[in-house]
């Protein structure tokens, strides 16, 4: 391995967009090396050549407008170029391609739960190779951050909000998932008794793995998980269990509240005159804080009670159910 290869410094690259990240990293790294060495050599040279000697006097520095402007302007194209390169890569890494496999990620103190599109869950994430995967992430307690060095991706998990991330693994194998937003830890149990050091739990132990399988192995893995609770069925059950049906219909008839039929992804006027596109974050907010945005035609504050007690999983299931009500 050559010392010029990015993998000399960085962990093995295992995703499609890693090459661009590494190229930019190498560019900035080697540019810094060249500039650092250049500046140091020049400094030492000038210090030596213009050192204090008998027979030589310090002369006034003088003024050179062109040199000054030149030195100020010269780095600008370089900086703008690096910014452009970085920002374009960031945008590419932010917008998932259509057809990506969507996985729900829930972070909590101190672990991870992954839920596949079919509703199967696991504490490690299996993904098929060469297929885009989009993670829709939330936290059930404090801030966490999902970081996978081999994929060159990292994004915060924020309670009360969905954040997302996508990647396309291009090699089979295993990699580690870390939490990179400090989230506490403990060495004692609920009763204040000291635990054995191997039992300590915390930010540092908030680890998981991503296993990149071939498509066949992945299918086998999913089948091995058995038939899970279908989130749509679960959401449908919650619709009556939690009493949403008292106000909301699913067949388009509008009573005291808007119907859920056709709700997903439509643009909807709000009471304050703004328009929203109905997506996960909007629905979550409508359920947890009904008065935050009120649908046009309904009174403020909303008559809908706040459902803050719902678990992340239940909100997800309701949203999945809503998506099917076309």
């Amino acid at each position, binding site marked *: 391995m050559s010392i010029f290869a990015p993998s000399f410094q960085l962990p093995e690259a295992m995703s499609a967009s890693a090459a661009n990240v590494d190229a930019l990293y190498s560019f900035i790294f080697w540019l810094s090396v060249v500039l650092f060495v250049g500046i140091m050599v020049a400094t030492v040279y000038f210090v030596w050549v*213009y050192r204090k000697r008998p027979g030589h006097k*310090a*002369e*006034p*520095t003088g003024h*050179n407008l062109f040199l*000054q402007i030149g*030195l*100020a302007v010269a780095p600008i194209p370089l900086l703008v170029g690096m910014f452009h390169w970085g920002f374009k890569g960031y945008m590419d890494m*932010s917008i998932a391609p259509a057809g990506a496999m969507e996985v729900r990620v829930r972070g909590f103190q101190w672990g991870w739960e992954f839920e596949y599109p079919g509703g199967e869950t696991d504490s490690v994430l299996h993904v098929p190779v060469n297929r885009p995967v989009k993670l*829709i992430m939330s936290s059930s*307690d*404090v*801030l966490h*951050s999902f970081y996978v060095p081999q994929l060159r991706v*990292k*994004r*915060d*998990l*924020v*309670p*009360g*909000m*969905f*954040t*997302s991330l996508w990647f396309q693994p291009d090699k089979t194998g295993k990699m580690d998932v870390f939490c990179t*937003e*400090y*989230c*506490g*830890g*403990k*060495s*004692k149990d609920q009763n204040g008794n*000291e635990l054995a*050091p*191997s039992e*300590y739990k*915390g930010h*540092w132990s908030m680890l998981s793995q991503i296993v990149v399988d071939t498509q066949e192995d992945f299918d086998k893995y999913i089948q091995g998980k058995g038939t899970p609770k279908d989130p749509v069925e679960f959401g449908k059950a919650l619709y009556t269990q939690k009493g949403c049906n008292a106000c909301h219909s699913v067949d388009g008839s509008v009573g005291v509240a808007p119907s859920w039929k056709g709700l997903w992804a439509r643009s909807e006027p709000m009471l304050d005159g703004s328009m929203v596109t109905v*997506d*996960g*974050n909007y629905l979550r907010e409508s359920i*947890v*804080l009904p008065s*935050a945005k009120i649908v046009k035609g309904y009174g403020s504050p909303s008559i809908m009670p706040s459902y*803050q007690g719902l678990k992340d999983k239940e909100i997800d299931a309701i949203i999945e159910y809503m998506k099917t009500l076309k």
Partner: protein
Amino acid sequence: MAALDIPIAGGQTGDEAHGDPNVNYLKANRGVMSWLWTVDHKRIGLLYLSTVALAFLVGGLFALVMRLELFTAGKTIVDPETYHRFFTLHGVVMVFLFLIPAIPAVLGNFLLPLMVGARGLAFPRLNMLSFYIYVTGAVFCVAAIIMESADTGWTFYTPYSMATKGCVLALMLSVMVLGLSSILTGINFIVTIHKMRAPGLTWARLPLFGWGMYATAITQILATPVLVITLGLLIFERVLGLGLFDPKLGGDPVLFQHFFWFYAHPAVYITVVSGMAVVSEIIATFSRRAVFGQLAIATSSLALALLGVSRLGKPHVSCRYE
């Protein structure tokens, strides 16, 4: 142009020796009280030097324990809770008790009046007040160290800082109070540089260290109030459950991050601009030459300060909504 002998508030000049060439500021008055109640800018600079050096030592000791703990995997000397408290205290002590005041409050206090040709800073008593506010902040910090202090990290991110059991309040109060001290120093420097330059010392001739202190002071008075207010809100949130930042109550934790980095991002420039100002002076002095591009360096420090304040901390908030 302001004259040299402007009498300062209450007839005090911020100069113990009162301009007598035969008495220096160390010998002008004697006794502990003459130091504790001094309004002399050089003496206050030295008082800051001692406290800042002490803070550096304390912050360094916390770091030392952390590195020792990491010597072996698993527990080496402290349990995880202690480790978390120590890196929090390390961060708070190093940033707010050492880094921020280090150059402005020590070298700035001592040198700025000399460099602009003034007897002292514009408000000598305000300067003393700002030192004692700093000491008050340090006392809160010591209280936090003695009690089971915060384990939130120096950024106090919610919702963790709402949920954790440790005594977060003492440390947050400490940082708030230290912020106030920093604002007062900033105001003092800006007024001094504007109003008390010796006749003929135009802006173009102002030494680069003066420019550095000016840029730093602007950052201090524009960005620090946001920190003080944000931590005030956080304290209200923790005590009264206001629901500004806590998602359970409908608040937004990312809002706290934006507020916090509105201060903490420019705070980086407080450190680097003052450091570069010192380096410019040292090079100019020992090479016995005027600095090449003096005006360019001066304006760039100023631009750095203003851009720093206007960046709203965006680069530090790493999450994207779906």
